[in-house]
C-alpha cells in the first residue's frame, strides 16, 4: 500500500494527515505548534508515520502547507493554505463552491469554480478580528470556556449588536456591554454574529456561492457554526474534523501532483 502525507503548520496547531492511494484517511494528528516549530514538525511526522507494531511508514510523498510550510525540510513540495483547503474541502464535499476557513490567526474565504479550482479568495490581512484567537480573547472576557460560550450563544434569545471592528476596541465594547447589564448569552451570541458578518462581507467580495464548507479549528465551535448557519444563505457543510482539512488537501496534492 502507498501512503501520502500532508502537514499543515499553522500558527496555533500543526496538523498531519496520512492517506492511502484511494484518498482514504488512514490517520490524522493535531499538535499545538508551540514555540519550537521544528520540534513540533518532527514530532508530527514521527507520530503520524508510526505503525501500531512500532514500525514506520515511508510515505511516497509529503506536501507541507500553512504559515510554517517552508520549515518542513522533508517536504517534497510546499503548497499555500488556499489551495490546500480548497482540495481538502472539495474532497470531503465534492459539490463545495465556497470554503470558509477560520483558523487560529487568519480567516479565508475561497471561491471555487465548477471544476473545483480556486477562482478567487479573500484573507484577512492586517487585522485578527474574527479569528480563533479573537474568540478565545472574547471568551476570556466573558469568563467562559469556549464550550460554554458556544452553548449559551446558541440558546440566547437575542443578540447584542457589536459595532467595533478592531479586536482591542471590541474588547472594551464588550466590557461596557457587561457593565450596562446586558445578558452574557446575548453578548456571546453577538460576538459570533459579528464574526459571521465579516465572513459574509468576505464571501461577497469573492462572489462566493452555496454550497459552503466550513473548515479550520473554529469550525469545531458550535456557536460559530450556528451563527454562520443563521447568517449565510445556502447549504453549509462542516467536516467531522474540520481542523485537518488543510493537511488533508496537502496529502491529496501529494497523491495527485507530486508522485501521482
Amino acid at each position: 500500500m502507498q501512503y501520502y502525507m500532508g502537514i499543515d503548520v499553522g500558527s496555533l496547531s500543526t496538523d498531519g494527515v496520512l492517506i492511502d492511494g484511494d484518498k482514504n484517511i488512514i490517520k490524522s494528528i493535531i499538535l499545538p505548534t508551540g514555540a519550537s516549530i521544528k520540534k513540533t514538525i518532527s514530532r508530527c511526522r514521527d507520530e503520524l508515520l508510526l505503525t501500531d507494531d512500532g514500525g514506520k511508514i515511508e510515505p511516497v510523498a509529503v506536501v507541507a502547507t500553512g504559515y510554517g510550510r517552508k520549515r518542513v525540510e522533508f517536504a517534497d513540495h510546499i503548497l499555500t493554505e488556499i489551495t490546500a483547503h480548497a482540495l481538502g474541502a472539495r474532497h470531503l464535499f465534492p459539490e463545495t463552491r465556497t470554503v470558509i476557513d477560520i483558523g487560529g490567526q487568519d480567516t479565508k474565504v475561497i471561491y471555487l469554480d465548477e471544476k473545483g479550482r480556486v477562482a478567487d479568495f479573500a484573507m484577512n490581512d492586517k487585522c485578527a478580528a474574527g479569528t480563533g484567537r479573537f474568540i478565545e480573547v472574547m471568551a476570556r472576557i466573558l469568563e467562559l470556556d469556549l464550550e460554554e460560550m458556544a452553548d449559551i450563544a446558541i440558546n440566547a434569545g437575542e443578540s447584542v449588536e457589536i459595532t467595533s471592528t478592531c479586536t482591542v476596541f471590541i474588547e472594551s465594547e464588550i466590557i461596557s456591554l457587561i457593565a450596562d447589564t446586558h445578558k452574557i448569552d446575548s453578548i456571546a451570541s453577538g460576538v459570533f454574529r459579528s464574526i459571521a458578518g465579516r465572513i459574509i462581507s468576505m464571501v461577497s467580495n469573492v462572489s462566493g456561492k452555496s454550497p459552503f464548507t466550513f473548515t479550520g479549528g473554529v469550525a469545531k465551535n458550535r456557536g460559530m457554526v450556528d451563527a454562520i448557519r443563521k447568517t449565510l444563505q445556502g447549504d453549509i457543510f462542516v467536516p467531522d474534523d474540520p481542523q485537518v482539512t488543510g493537511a488533508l488537501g496537502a496529502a491529496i496534492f501529494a497523491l495527485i501532483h507530486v508522485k501521482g
Partner: protein
Amino acid sequence: MSKIGITTTIPVEVIFAAGETPVDLNNIFITHPDPGEMVRNAEEKGLPRTLCSWVKGIFSAIIANPDIDTIIAVTEGDCTNTLAMLDLFRSKGIEVIPFAYPYNMNRDTLNENIRKLEAYFGVSRKQTLEMKTKLDGIREKALLIDRMTYEDNTISGLENHISLISLSDFEGDPDGYEKKLDLLISKAKSREPFRHATRIGFCGVPTIFSDLYGFLENNKARVVFNEMQRQFAMPYKTDNILDQYLNYTYPYSFKRRIKDTKEESQKRQLTGLIHYVQSFCHHQIHDRELRESADIPVLTLEGDKPEKLKERTRIRIESFLEMLSLGT
C-alpha cells in the same frame, strides 16, 4: 534656485517652459533613505494616524526641502485630502497654486485651468506646445521601454515602474532623464529575455511596499503592465495639450482606467492583476468595481506605511500566484 513642488502629474510642460524645475514630492518621499521616518515626523507634527502615508510623506518632503517654496496642488482629479493640505501648506508660508482636472472632462474648463497656470508662470500656449514636443520625444522613449517590458521581455517590472513614474517631473531635468532612458534601452537590448511564467498587471496607485516587484520576480512572476505609471507617459499621441490631458485617464472617471486595464491585459497577455490600494485612500472604493469588471483574477493588496512586505501579505501573493499557475 527655487523648485516647484507637485503632488501628482500636472501639465508639466508649463513649468519647464517657464524655466522652472518641477519636483514630484511623492518621489522625494519614497526615495528618501528612511521614508518611514518621514511618516513618523508628519504624525509627530499632528497629522492623523488615519491619513494616507503618501500625504504624510509629501508633507514631510516639503518641510525637509526649504528650496521648495511653491506647490501646485491638484484640487480636482487626485487625492481628496488635497484641499485640507492646501490650507496647511499655506499656513507654513508656502505659496500654493491650485490646478483642477474637471471631472466632467469639459474641454473649455481644462483649457481655462491650463491658461491660468500659463498666466501664473508667464508662459504662452506656443511655448507650452514647444515644450510638449520636446517632452513627447522623451515620453516616446519611456513608451519604448514599456513595449520592451511586455514584447521583448527584457525590462523588469521595477525598471518599467521607475522609468514611467518619473515622467511626472522628468526628475527636474528632461535632458538628463532622457540620457537615463537611453542607457536603460541600450542595456536591455543586450539582455536575454526574462522567462517568468506568470505575467502580472499592476493597477491602482503606486505601491508603498519597497520589495513587491522583486518578491514577484523571485516567485516566477513579473509585472509587465504598470497601469497608472504608463499614463504618466501620456500614451495616446496628441498634437495639442488639451487632448493630451483629456486622454490621460487618472484624474477622471475610474471606468476609463478599467477600460484601459482590460485592453492592455489582453494585449499583454496578462495572467492576473494586482490592485494596490493605500490605507485611508478614497481609491479603495474602486476596488469592487475593478474586481467585477476584470476578465482575469485580481488580488487586492493594501499598504499603509513604507515598509517591506509582511509575512501575511507575502502569503496572499504566493497564494494568488499558485492559483494562477494551477489554472483557474
